[in-house]
């Protein structure tokens, strides 16, 4: 860990700013100088990255790096408190830099406008003491883990879904890594993301501040770090639980006979097709229905049966007139409600869940089920822009 350059004293302004740290024996002048000499990299300026970067800046971490390439969207504001309403449409890095500079102009902010990859991760991580993982996808989670293990840098890990959060410190010397707990990622589509499943806006605030706390503790060398322990937080029940994590001697990255000695292709490892995913504008497979076709059918009173496989909360936000709601999860047990239906146009928010529903329906003998390409978002774009998008 970073050692304080004791010849670099705090200015009078800094003493005033950090006085509540300085009077505590666990931090004190030594700890504050360690913080000033330290550098932390936040992967992502989103839900977790917001409180992490803001609190680390306020705490006086000397250099904070942020990796992101996204733009602030209205749907971010419910939880990404480093960005404000006037920032919508701005790059998150710019918005984050402004917020952090307002909190503490003493801190050096380094922005990394890139998608983290095997080609750049080691170079970027190399410049920092502690890495804080606030990403939202499995390929980047494994990439961050492996890069931290290879470089011997601790990874303050946090992850969130709906009302539940997880936190730990991986990759610390002698401690387990993410792969010791989860050797392999789930196949794509099996584990829902926050964009699909939703997340309580306050949840990343709790989990992110835990990550920031661990980063500060590692830097100043105080307390018991969350190494070898997995903290699980259930916001609905307001309950914290702790599980023991062990270093797996057979771990391919940090075990005794490691097989991963350099970064790999994480999209391939996670079974994700790299980039160039088909967009709603791509020509539809011949079997799919388009929103234009559906609109024409509804206008000519040749109304097909429209099946909406989203959740009731989503249906309440917006729906296509005349559609019938059966959430995807309930579909297998409610197939009898569809008996006798011929043609069916099946839709969800953007087309992924309805594609699964169509596969399921066809296997169950509903041969005329068709996926509405692009889902209700496409319907709103093309047919009815008065409906709210979510």
């Amino acid at each position: 860990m970073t050692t304080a350059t004791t010849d670099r004293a705090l200015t009078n302004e800094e003493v005033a700013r950090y006085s509540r740290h300085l009077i505590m024996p666990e931090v004190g002048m030594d700890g504050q100088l360690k913080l000033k000499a330290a550098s932390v990299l936040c992967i992502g300026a989103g839900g977790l990255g917001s409180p992490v970067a803001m609190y680390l800046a306020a705490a006086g971490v000397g250099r904070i790096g942020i990796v992101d390439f996204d733009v602030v969207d209205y749907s971010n504001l419910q939880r990404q408190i480093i960005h404000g309403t006037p920032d919508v449409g701005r790059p998150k890095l710019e918005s984050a830099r402004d917020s952090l500079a307002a909190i503490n102009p003493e801190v050096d902010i380094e922005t990394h406008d890139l998608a983290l990859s095997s080609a750049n991760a080691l170079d970027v991580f190399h410049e920092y003491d502690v890495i804080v993982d606030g990403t939202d996808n499995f390929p980047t989670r494994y990439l961050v883990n492996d890069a931290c293990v290879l470089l011997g840098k601790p990874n303050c890990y946090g992850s969130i879904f709906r009302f539940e959060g997880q936190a730990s410190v991986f990759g610390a010397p002698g401690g387990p890594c993410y792969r010791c707990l989860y050797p392999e990622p789930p196949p794509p589509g099996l584990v829902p993301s926050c964009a699909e499943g939703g997340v309580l806006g306050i949840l990343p605030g709790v989990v992110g501040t835990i990550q920031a706390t661990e980063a500060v503790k590692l830097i100043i060398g105080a307390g018991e770090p969350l190494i070898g322990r997995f903290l699980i937080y259930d916001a609905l029940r307001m309950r914290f639980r702790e599980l023991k994590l062990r270093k797996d001697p057979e771990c391919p990255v940090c075990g005794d006979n490691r097989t991963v000695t350099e970064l790999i292709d994480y999209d391939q490892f996670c079974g994700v097709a790299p980039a160039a995913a088909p967009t709603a504008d791509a020509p539809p497979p011949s079997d799919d229905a388009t929103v234009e076709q559906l609109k024409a059918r509804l206008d000519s009173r040749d109304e097909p049966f429209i099946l909406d496989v989203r959740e009731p909360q989503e249906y309440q936000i917006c729906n296509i007139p005349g559609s019938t709601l059966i959430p995807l999860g309930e579909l297998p047990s409610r197939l009898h409600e569809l008996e006798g239906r011929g043609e069916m146009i099946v839709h969800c928010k953007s087309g992924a869940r309805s594609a699964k529903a169509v596969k399921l329906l066809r296997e169950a003998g509903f041969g005329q089920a068709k996926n509405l390409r692009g889902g209700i978002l496409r319907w709103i774009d093309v047919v009815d822009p008065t409906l709210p998008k979510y």
Partner: protein
Amino acid sequence: MPTRILIPTPLRVYAGKQDVIEVEGSTVGELLANMTAEYTELRKHLYNEDGRLRAFVAIFVNDDDIRFLEKEATPVKEGDTVSIIPTVAGGGGL
């Protein structure tokens, strides 16, 4: 004597929306088999096509990962709590 299995948020939709399921069994394997016999949709989320526990779902008896105990043969006794801890990737970024 039934043992409590804690169901995580992402899997509750396949478990009748319950967060706790009580089932009978003397080992982790028996408990999970009895549970998935009743909640069949859970099965594919816990086991792969070869019938092995999936590598992205960790099973704990009390505080301990069964992979470092006796895996599915890990015995459970009265009062134990079994937790299913699946990986989640969310960072609230999107």
